[in-house]
């Protein structure tokens, strides 16, 4: 049971870390491109 708790807890930590990196360190233009809201002009 404690093993399952650890897996869930560390998964939550990983998600939180990923969200912080995404929201604070990824530039807005790159985010928009990754979300598909911006198209490339050649």
């Amino acid at each position, binding site marked *: *049971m*404690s093993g399952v*708790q*650890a897996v*869930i*807890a*560390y998964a*939550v*930590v990983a998600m*939180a*870390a990923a*969200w*912080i990196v995404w*929201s*604070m360190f990824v530039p807005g*233009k790159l985010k*928009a*491109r990754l979300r598909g*809201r*911006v*198209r*490339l*002009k*050649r």
Partner: protein
Amino acid sequence: MSAEAVLEPPPPSLADRLNTEAAPAQALPVAVARLALIGAPNCGKTALFNALTGSRQKVANYAGVTVERKEGAVTAVDGWRARVLDLPGTYSLRARSPDEVVTRDAVLGRLAGETPPDVLVCIADATNLKGALRLVLELKQVGRPMVLAMNMFDIAERQGWRIDLEGLSRELDIPVVTTVATRRRGVDALLAAAQRLARGPAALSSEVAWREPGPVELRTAHREAERIARACVAPPARPDTLTGKLDGVLLHPVFGSAILLGLLFLMFQAVFTWAQPLMDLIKAGFDQLGVLVGQTFPPGLLRSLISEGVISGVGSVLVFLPQILILFFFIIVLEDLGYMARAAFLMDRVMGGAGLHGRAFIPLLSSFACAIPGVMGARVIDNRRDRLTTILVAPLMTCSARIPVYTLIISAFIPNRTVWGFASLQGLVMFGLYAAGIVSALSVGFVIRKLFWRGAAEPFLMELPAYKLPDPKNVLMGVWTRAKIFLTRAGTVILAMMVLIWFLSSTPSAPPGAVGPAINYSFAGMLGHAMEPLLAPIGFTWQMAVALVPAMAAREVAVAALGTVYAVQGGENALGPLSGVLHAHWSMASALAMLAWFIFAPQCASTLGVVKRETNSWKWPAIMFAYMTALAYVAAFATYHIARLAGA
């Protein structure tokens, strides 16, 4: 081959669409016209924008609330659709300040990737038509189809203004409609008029014709506006004397200033006395939640994460929601009354003495909510040095993110007793901290403008708005918006940070045979101990150091971080209010040093990002961070050592 990322282009103008529609065998886009709302400051453009689009942009009874272009969609009863642009207020297209440049460029189609609007909706305050007519005459030269919306028409009628609408329409040669934006009156008629214009022949061309008028043309336009006003507008038989009488008291150099101070004093007393029952309720809710988690989950990492990371961390911040809402309730009511513009007038002498431009008052006032709108609001200042000075001092005003930090330390260290027979001591300290923020902003402004950027003071002209009873819907909406912002931050950045802090505070676990709390051996403990030598001279413990790092994301995270760090450190025995825990672990001198640190605290990544955007350079955010960090350190150092000498 080069690839360049561009944002989606704006919807094509009607003219472009009609050209497209004329071409056979092409997929036709849905017809969407573009309407631009233009008018003098504080004539109700954003209120009309909200009424048209169902949006909830901030409106207030003073000039300079909107400093950037906003866009929304509207659909008429018959299904006709339009995009609506809300633009910053301006008296003329001869733009001087950055916000006025946005309006001019949007009207003339000079913004990147944009064509001129299909229809100009010129909005006039019906109680102050003469000034608006000059803008109407100037906008007519642009050559786009235009409709005049006479906003606040109910107030004009109540005051006894008689306006010949047909005559006005004839003189100006444009349709005229009456509106009461706050009650959504006249919106359908306005849309119908705009629709007729958008479908008319004048909308087919996207040509604009405007050049900056010379002094002769300006005088001619002024005379023409006066002539039209004399012909079509009759002032009230009994002029409004109430505004004059109220202003006689509220703008009086002595009584007015005393009333302003009294209002601020009352506000902070209320923040502490009214909020307490609600705060107790939220605290009890989180305590119950903690008990429930303890009963539901067996001991383990997940239970520790939920109770020590999420509940102790996020819960310790959410408790301060009532105080923030009460503070903003007062601010929004005073804004709606039209009092804040008077406060700007009263403060102009003080601000001018400190070298700040009079128009800096509104950006600095916005900074009480958050420095970000304050920094953006500095666009209303046309002189670059004045604007930069305002941007540099705006984060010194006490933003709402500092409230949880201040309140936590005050409730932990300042006794909850009454002084002078009526005032709460805790409220007085809070008042003092806000005053310290204002004084430090004025002092830094003084140093910048008198020592580094000497120059003549720019004149300050501001139209004082009419007094109005606060609109309950607007007040509730404003308070709700603040609540939503706070809850969103608690549910996103603060929650994510607390999960990380919990991880850093509980990993790695203590080695076998370790003495002392396990957190001492964790990553957070290592980080805190590494920073301790730097922060020890200002009286900060390593736990305080741990709280300062994540506060870069948002200042209130410091409170949540302290909640989590002490919860992890104390384990199951750490139950109890965080203020009690701090009281047991910190000295009075350290607590006062922490308060002094947060008056100047530079930790807010979002503010630094916005300063970079507004100044288009990393130089200014770097200067801001450096000078605020230095001031915070010096202030905390001095406070700590003076308090120690005083025996605290």
